[in-house]
């Protein structure tokens, strides 16, 4: 084990201890003091928000400890007989995609080094797009599948073609994903190692990040997910299918009855069922596919809304099944799925964390007070150690602190979208399937920025009131004013980011 890895493990353990220490004392202080009803309510909400942050930190730190320990290599490959390769069907689902984007994907699919492949474009487009799409598919040797009745989502169109797939494996690439030529040879070799391997998931890497700050932020956020988090899930046999850039045994998908059509994150829902049948999933952290990030705020928020609502919706449905024992998952799988599903409550947690300092300054609620010494000895070590591990592990993968911060800004700005989507999921509202817009220049009208503007004004008012109240308690007022100012700074990024992206100097898809 290298010196660096040993150091990260030591810091992770210290961070874990400081996390329990802080949280234990935090809960104790809340319960040991008595307040009025309103104060208790906001105190409880703040505690809930902090619990969420602590839970996600716990998941992250335990992943880092697990990943840095020497472990069995589960990336074993079978030796493939190139003259007798297992058959693979390559599926490309798409709906109303720009031809330029489709063409790049078709070129890469045709160029996959794999003799035993069948390629199908699953066209869920509106009628006016079909003829052009068909011509393009034919040009590159892809079959063109148009369902008899329009499919309402990706899962449905895949399920419609499923009875016609006879190959041992199938793989899916979204219409904006460009695989490298060795994708199939690599993933099939991994899958062939054991019959118990249901699917191999590879990362997504967005390469259009120089289009603008949104694409860059989304790419960074995606990278954070596909580096440490997915590797941790892979090590616990809890990596879920991300809907694109994966290879799966066709028989396994047929066994679980196809993709779950009631979810907008059909991949997540189906993965739970596959794991419950005792199959393994593998996360192969080698980029073999390049894709496109959303380039504008509306496109980015649409993607976040879909992922959040879909994931929370699945968990709502599956919790009772897991609890009743109808779906059998290991403890680590339940833990990892639980972490993934609760991640999207970050919106609520962030909202509570940004309004509480302002509420305190304006209305003196929640008036729970901890001495500066308590914060210095408990919160500061927990917070900074967790941040240190996060930045150190990402730095080890060549991400700069500035880049990671951009990713964090994007996550923070999504809070109203995540709050709205989790409510929709909990209330079981039907969510229409929408693809993430690619290559469209669009901004949010000013009036739609009201949630961010309202919170900024609220914090601004709190700072002014805080300045008047400063002499009451320098420490408490000062620290809450600091948080309000920080939140204003963070949220004001919404205006900087809500811009039409500049045309790319060297456009990726401009290949002709």
């Amino acid at each position, binding site marked *: 084990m290298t010196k660096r890895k040993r150091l990260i493990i030591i810091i992770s353990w210290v961070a874990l201890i400081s996390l329990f220490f802080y949280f234990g004392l935090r809960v104790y202080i809340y319960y040991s003091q008595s307040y009025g009803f309103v104060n208790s309510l906001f105190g409880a909400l703040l505690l809930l928000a902090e619990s969420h942050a602590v839970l996600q930190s716990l998941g992250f730190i335990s992943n880092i400890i697990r990943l840095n320990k020497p472990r069995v290599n589960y990336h074993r490959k079978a030796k493939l007989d190139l003259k007798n390769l297992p058959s693979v069907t390559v599926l490309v689902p798409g709906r109303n995609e720009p031809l330029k984007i489709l063409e*790049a994907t078709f*070129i*890469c699919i*045709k*160029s996959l080094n794999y003799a035993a492949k069948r390629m199908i474009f699953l066209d869920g487009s509106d009628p006016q797009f079909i003829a052009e799409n068909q011509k393009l598919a034919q040009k*590159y040797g892809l079959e063109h599948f148009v369902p008899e009745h329009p499919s309402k989502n990706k899962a449905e169109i895949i399920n419609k073609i499923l009875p016609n797939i006879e190959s041992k494996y199938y793989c899916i690439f979204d219409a904006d994903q*460009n695989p*490298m*030529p060795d994708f199939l040879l690599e993933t099939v070799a991994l899958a062939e190692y054991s019959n118990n391997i249901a699917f191999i998931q590879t990362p997504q*890497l967005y*390469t*259009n*990040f*120089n289009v603008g700050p949104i694409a860059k932020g989304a790419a960074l956020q995606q*990278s954070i997910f596909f580096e440490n988090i997915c590797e941790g899930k892979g090590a616990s046999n809890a990596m879920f299918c991300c809907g694109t850039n994966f290879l799966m045994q066709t028989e396994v998908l047929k066994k679980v009855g196809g993709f779950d059509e009631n979810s907008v994150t059909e991949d997540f829902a189906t993965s739970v069922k596959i794991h419950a049948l005792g199959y393994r999933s593998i996360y192969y952290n080698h*980029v073999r596919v*390049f894709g496109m990030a959303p380039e504008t705020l509306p496109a980015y928020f649409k993607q976040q809304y879909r992922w959040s609502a879909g994931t929370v919706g699945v968990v709502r449905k599956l919790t009772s099944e897991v609890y009743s024992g109808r779906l059998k998952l290991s403890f680590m799988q339940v833990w990892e799925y639980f972490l993934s599903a609760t991640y999207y409550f970050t919106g609520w947690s962030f909202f509570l964390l940004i309004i509480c300092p302002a509420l305190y300054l304006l209305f003196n609620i929640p008036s729970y007070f901890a001495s500066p010494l308590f914060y210095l000895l408990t919160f500061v070590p927990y917070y900074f150690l967790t941040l240190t591990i996060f930045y150190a592990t990402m730095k080890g993968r*060549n*991400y700069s602190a500035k880049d990671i911060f951009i990713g964090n800004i994007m996550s923070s700005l999504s809070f109203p979208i995540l709050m709205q989507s989790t409510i929709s999921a909990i209330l079981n509202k039907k969510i229409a399937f929408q693809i993430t817009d690619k290559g469209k220049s669009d901004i949010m009208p000013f009036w739609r920025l009201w949630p961010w503007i309202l919170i900024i004004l609220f914090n601004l008012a709190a700072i002014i009131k805080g300045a008047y109240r400063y002499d009451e308690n320098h420490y408490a007022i000062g620290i809450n004013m600091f948080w309000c100012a920080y939140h204003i700074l963070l949220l004001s990024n919404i205006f900087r980011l809500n811009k039409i992206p500049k045309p790319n100097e*060297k456009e*990726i*898809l401009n*290949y*002709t």
Partner: protein
Amino acid sequence: MKKLMKNNKEYILDKISEALVKEELAIPLYTSHIEQTLFWSGFDEDKKKQILISLNLLTKESRAHVGGLKKIMAIYKKLK
């Protein structure tokens, strides 16, 4: 025998056309993606420059291959 020859010709033409798609269209796409990913690589500027030069060289070679493949294709097409 003639049928076999004909099948072989079709097979070879098919393979040439596949190679053409790769050389003419896929390689510039891969190059473009790889160029972008240098941002994440953590390499210093000199190393990045070296990689970019090599990538450009490969792209140029690919263009030369395209010319060659088109000539071979024309020859095969003329064969009876």
